[in-house]
């Protein structure tokens, strides 16, 4: 599903060069649920962003569904993200000016689809995360756990084959975190969605099928 080969990511400024990822090789199979662990600044999020086509590697090859993405145009990358990938961010990244249901609809805006179909799918996604009573609320009116559930509904509304979650429980207490993990587990088991989750939490990571550990930008296992 996702293949990273000899990935390197270097951040360059006028004075210094920081190596964020070094010779990373990874193959993630369809339907797999894996977690990426490691200390802060070890390159976990960078790796996830490269997998999700949100960032480009300095070197190496990224393949999504056996397609090399390096030469893809901006529009083709956008289409691929829209069709294949759903993101869940630690700080939710909801648009405060839009209601819950409008936030969830965002990925569908970039598909040719009627307004009523969009609304139907968004409400179904909110139902899956147990938030169907709050569709008209705005993000500022929700708790952290509820916001993350909105973010998950947004990630799954377009039925992507891959979900990339960057510390999805990082801002939540353990109860809320467990709820979010339940939702992700259910998605993986019932819909065979491939999930890659960055986490600091050993307990949550142990619930996934495979753990990738990073240290100073390199894989250690």
């Amino acid at each position: 599903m996702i293949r990273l080969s000899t990935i390197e990511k270097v951040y360059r400024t006028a004075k210094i060069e920081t190596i964020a990822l070094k010779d990373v090789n990874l193959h993630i199979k369809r339907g797999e649920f894996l977690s990426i662990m490691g200390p802060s600044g070890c390159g976990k999020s960078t790796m996830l962003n490269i997998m999700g086509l949100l960032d480009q590697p300095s070197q190496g090859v990224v393949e999504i569904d056996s397609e090399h993405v390096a030469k893809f145009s901006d529009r083709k990358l956008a289409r691929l993200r829209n069709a294949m990938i759903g993101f869940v961010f630690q700080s939710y990244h909801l648009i405060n000016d839009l209601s819950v249901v409008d936030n969830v609809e965002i990925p569908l805006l970039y598909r040719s689809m009627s307004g009523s179909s969009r609304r139907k799918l968004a409400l179904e996604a909110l139902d899956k995360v147990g938030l169907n009573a709050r569709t008209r609320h705005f993000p500022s009116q929700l708790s952290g756990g509820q916001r993350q559930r909105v973010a998950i509904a947004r990630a799954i509304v377009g039925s992507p084959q891959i979900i990339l979650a960057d510390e999805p429980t990082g801002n939540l207490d353990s109860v809320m975190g467990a709820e979010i993990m339940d939702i992700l587990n259910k998605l993986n088991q019932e819909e065979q969605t491939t999930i890659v989750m960055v986490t600091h939490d050993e307990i949550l990571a142990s619930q996934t099928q495979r753990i990738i550990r990073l240290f100073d930008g390199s894989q250690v296992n």
Partner: protein
Amino acid sequence: MLINYLKIAIKVLLRHKLFTFISLFGISLTLLILIMVTSLLDHTFGSQPPELKLDRTLSITMGLLTSKDGGQSNGPVMSPYFLKKYVKSLKTPEVVSMSSFHNRVITYKNRTKFRLDIKYTDSEFFEILDFNFLEGNPYSLNDVSSRRNVIVINQNTREQYFDGEEAIGNTMEVEGEKFRVIGVVENCSILRIMPYADVWLPLTFSKTPLDEVTLIGGFPGWFAMMLATDESDIPAIKKEFQNQLALVEYPDDKWVEIKTAASTYAEAFSRNLRLSEEGNAKPLLIILFILMILFMLLPTINLVNINLSRIMERSSEIGVRKAFGASSLTLVGQFVVENVIITLIGGAIALILAIGILEIINSSSLIPYVNFSLNYRIFFNSLVICLFFGLFSGVYPAFKMSRLQPVDALRGESS
């Protein structure tokens, strides 16, 4: 998608009330100024009653005379004698008229004082100008030459002076003489300098000796109008008049040179502003165009700045949209739609303000008989230009942001 953009645009506008106010203020003020200025220009120079044939009308209003010792006299100085001898005799125009500029006189009726602006004209004056006669008719060539005591008055004078009485056939005293009213016309704005008056009289009643042999002088100043059969005859008329000027005899031995020209309204105005010696209207039009661009530029710079800061602080939204499938082009489209919305709101405000202000000016007696009307064509054109600048000011910041890697946009990094 458009509804989503609209929702976001309105939310963003409401969220930043100060920015929104500054944007809307800039756009609506610019449009308002453009509408007001063009309405004024249209009212003053545009083709409207009684000057419906402006496209084929030339006038001689100003002159510049140089004396032997280098002294100069300029302004509306051409004497009735000059106009009669050298202008009325032109062959190329279809009709030539001469008349005085208006001057104010006082008259009384039943001890009530009336201030009237009067104008001495020939009968051709009413052939060139299309006055709308509410009653009666203009005076004829015969009326003028045989000094019949007849006058034409405007609607306002009929209401004030005759106060409900029949005006036609009734008499009115002007400058110590009694005149019979033979025509009543619609009020004409004071800004239309050539036709304007309250009362029009045959020029043979003028206190100025019309046949006195002199090139300049004659209270309160005189001018001539020439009507071409066709617009294409205008160059020939101008040429004939210039040839005529070469034949001018200088009777009082004081003046040695005379400069004047048969000009259209815009040309005459341009020359009066000293923009062009020859009475060429191009410099005037260029200056008006530059002024218009400058007017438009101010809100554009303002908009670019506001849009930049507005869009920069929405980088997280841009990141989210990119992450979920928006291409750079789609995002540029979104911000452009937002700009179009704010410009249209500004345009609507300007339109409402313009209608209100023009109505206030029209209903006040600040400018006699003025009737400014909203020029929807100009409003539409200004709106199109504003939209263009609105798009331009939105596209640049949006383009800049849309080129960011999604991950940088999500982090809120603008560079």
